[in-house]
């Protein structure tokens, strides 16, 4: 039966992303997409319930935001607490231990995303049957690739184990330093596999690069839109995932700001609130909320940095820049290539650090003159992560604001889903699960952390609900409950 009413399609829950979210697709009476929105339906409340807790507990508490990249929160909080306990420069052992932990973290998280979460889309196609489009099919049909993914992630987790004390939710970063160094035995257990990891990391860059080049038409048409980009960069412009100054560029590559001290971030970054989302929308103050939004994460970092200080990754970065004609790459699907270049960089850095005798040092912690406020930024796997705290004279937290990578990418992800919805759904009389998966592919490319650490692995039922303009539910569809695809007419 034909109806002439506007509708909203809901894709909930999103699969193969971290945490819970949904997408709504707004259709007018002619089935044209007017807007698509990514909703984060979780509410965690960490910023409130951390208040009253003691400052040295913060790095251990806030990392519980996530089970995939807890190290990023652990280290960002520890850096902010360094500032509060008056330590601006850690001992070499402490800083290198933290960096080693972070490189292990970025490596394992990026590998998890590429090999486990998005590889089914890339290898089987966005429209492949949902029953096939999952990690189990990858294990069956590409066992060698699946095995490398598992072992690379394992290696990253082992790095975290030996630096943080546990593979997930360790406790080693303390205000002003670290609580352990790296024993010779721990070092040697990692070194024995490092060259294998280097080899596989280069293969991963090849896979992602070749996918991009072989599917250029798709890559250029899929969620490709101009945006600003932002990340930390080292003083000399090199990629630095642990510390540095903030650099932002526009879609043409022109500098918006450079080497900004993140401790003053509120002078150049603002957050906008929209009534339909728990997530805020950050933007660059000087550009305003309409033009000032930006992307963060691997793609943004490959665009903002001048070079990479490890040779193999630097050569791959040069290839990437050549591909994008030395302008910022704005293609959503290019995130995958950028992500694998970072894996290679992390493995090179891990090897460099493992050979550094400072890691066996015993000078682990410093103290300084106490401050009331701590601000830190770290480049998490998914992008810039801001932690901002205030602490009273009794050592209790009185204020906390966390701007996570996924929040920075909020506007970009919403634009990406709108772009893809308009291309693949607009005007279609029959909407299939495969079409809706295209929207999920667009979201997945940003590797959003919806902060729940729940991995659906493609087995969580994707339920589509169709509402009429009066918000009445008129149909539901899911490939796992044998319902027919939704008829929109």
């Amino acid at each position: 039966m034909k109806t002439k009413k506007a509708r909203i399609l809901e894709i909930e829950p999103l699969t193969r992303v971290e945490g819970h979210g949904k997408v709504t697709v707004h259709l007018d009476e002619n089935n044209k997409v007017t807007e698509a929105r990514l909703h984060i339906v979780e509410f965690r409340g960490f910023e409130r319930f951390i208040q009253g807790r003691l400052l040295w507990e913060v790095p251990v508490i806030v990392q519980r935001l996530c089970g995939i990249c807890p190290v990023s929160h652990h280290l960002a909080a520890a850096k902010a607490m360094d500032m509060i306990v008056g330590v601006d420069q850690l001992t070499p052992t402490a800083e290198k231990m933290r960096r080693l932990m972070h490189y292990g973290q970025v490596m394992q998280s990026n590998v998890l995303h590429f090999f486990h979460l998005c590889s089914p889309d890339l290898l089987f196609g966005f429209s492949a049957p949902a029953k096939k489009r999952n990690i189990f099919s990858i294990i069956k049909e590409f066992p060698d690739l699946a095995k490398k993914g598992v072992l690379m992630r394992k290696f990253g987790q082992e790095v975290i184990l030996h630096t943080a004390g546990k593979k997930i939710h360790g406790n080693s970063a303390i205000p002003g330093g670290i609580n352990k160094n790296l024993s010779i035995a721990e070092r040697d257990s990692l070194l024995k596999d490092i060259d294998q990891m280097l080899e596989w990391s280069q293969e991963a860059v090849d896979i992602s690069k070749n996918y991009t080049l072989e599917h250029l038409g798709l890559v250029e048409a899929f969620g490709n839109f101009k945006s600003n980009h932002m990340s930390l960069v080292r003083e000399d412009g090199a990629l630095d995932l642990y510390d540095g100054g903030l650099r932002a560029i526009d879609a043409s590559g022109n500098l918006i700001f450079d080497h900004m001290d993140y401790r003053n971030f509120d002078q150049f970054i603002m957050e906008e609130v929209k009534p339909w989302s728990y997530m805020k929308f950050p933007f660059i103050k000087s550009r305003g909320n309409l033009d000032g939004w930006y992307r963060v994460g691997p793609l943004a970092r490959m665009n903002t940095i001048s070079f990479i200080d490890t040779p193999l990754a630097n050569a791959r970065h040069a290839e990437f820049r050549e591909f994008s004609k030395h302008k910022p790459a704005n293609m959503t699907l290019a995130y995958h290539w950028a992500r694998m270049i970072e894996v290679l960089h992390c493995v090179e850095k891990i090897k460099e650090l493992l050979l550094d005798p400072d890691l066996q040092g015993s000078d682990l912690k410093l103290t300084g003159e106490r401050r009331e406020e701590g601000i830190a930024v770290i480049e998490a796997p998914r992008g810039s992560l801001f932690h901002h705290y205030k602490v009273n004279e009794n050592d209790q937290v009185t204020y906390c604001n966390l701007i996570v990578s996924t929040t920075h990418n909020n506007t970009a992800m919403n634009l990406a889903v709108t772009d893809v919805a308009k291309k693949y759904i607009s005007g279609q009389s029959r909407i299939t699960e495969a079409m809706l998966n295209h929207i999920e592919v667009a979201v997945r490319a940003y590797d959003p952390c919806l902060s729940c650490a729940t991995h659906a692995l493609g087995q969580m039922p994707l339920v589509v609900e169709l509402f009429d303009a009066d918000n009445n539910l008129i149909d539901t569809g899911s490939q796992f409950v044998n319902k027919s695809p939704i008829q929109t007419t």
Partner: protein
Amino acid sequence: MSDNKKITLTIDGKTIQAESGQSIMNACDAQGIYIPRLCDSTGLVPQGSCRVCSVKVNGRVVAACTQPAEDGANIEHESDEIQGYRKDLVRMLFHEGNHLCPICEASGRCELQAMAYRFGISQATTYPYLQPVRPVDASHPDIALDNNRCILCGRCIRASRDVDGKNVFEYVGRGIHKRIGVNGDCLADTNADLNDYAMSLEVCPVGCIIRKGEGFFSPVGERQYDSDKIGSNIENHTAHSSLGKLIKVHQIDPNDAIHDDIDQSNVNEDKS
């Protein structure tokens, strides 16, 4: 109390020798038999309040830390019934407070956590969580109190009173509202000092008494119970030399009615 008179007990069918006047717990400790405990601590007057050391003597359930060993007593220690009581008591402690091990700096050295591991308690039970909301007292420059983690063992009360010669802590309230209070509006109002025995890591079995700025100093793997289960120092005879050697007793009034029924042989004199 007759000194050094040898007596014989039977514990779970095993005959052991003890000295007259010893508590059942001390008698067992000396034989390498660990009876679980939370409110008892070496060097403090036993008070028998947590009941985790419950044993059955001649058919009656008693606290092993305060019950004198009697010649010919038949003691039931690790029967299913007794272990069940002990497990339930430990489980209920988790439900009464906010024991969030993943974010607690006592994790790895916490006796409550270690006891749960020893008993194989690894998941939530059907009891309701009371989820108390008690303010953290961080007023003191060196010490903080998180009463949400307190199990009311009273070790801090006895340590402050009997060892430090202060009275920083005391029980206040009754029944479900019972909690540890301080001798003032807040800890900063008291004469508490970081060097007090009551503030040492040996006294608070959980993460209630916090030594400021020291949290998470110990890496995972090097914490007290990371590799050794609680009680293993007693079960392992080689560790016996360290038992009962901790501290001096500052003052215990023998006329104090509270202590009339307490076996003073459990209080360890300073041997250093």
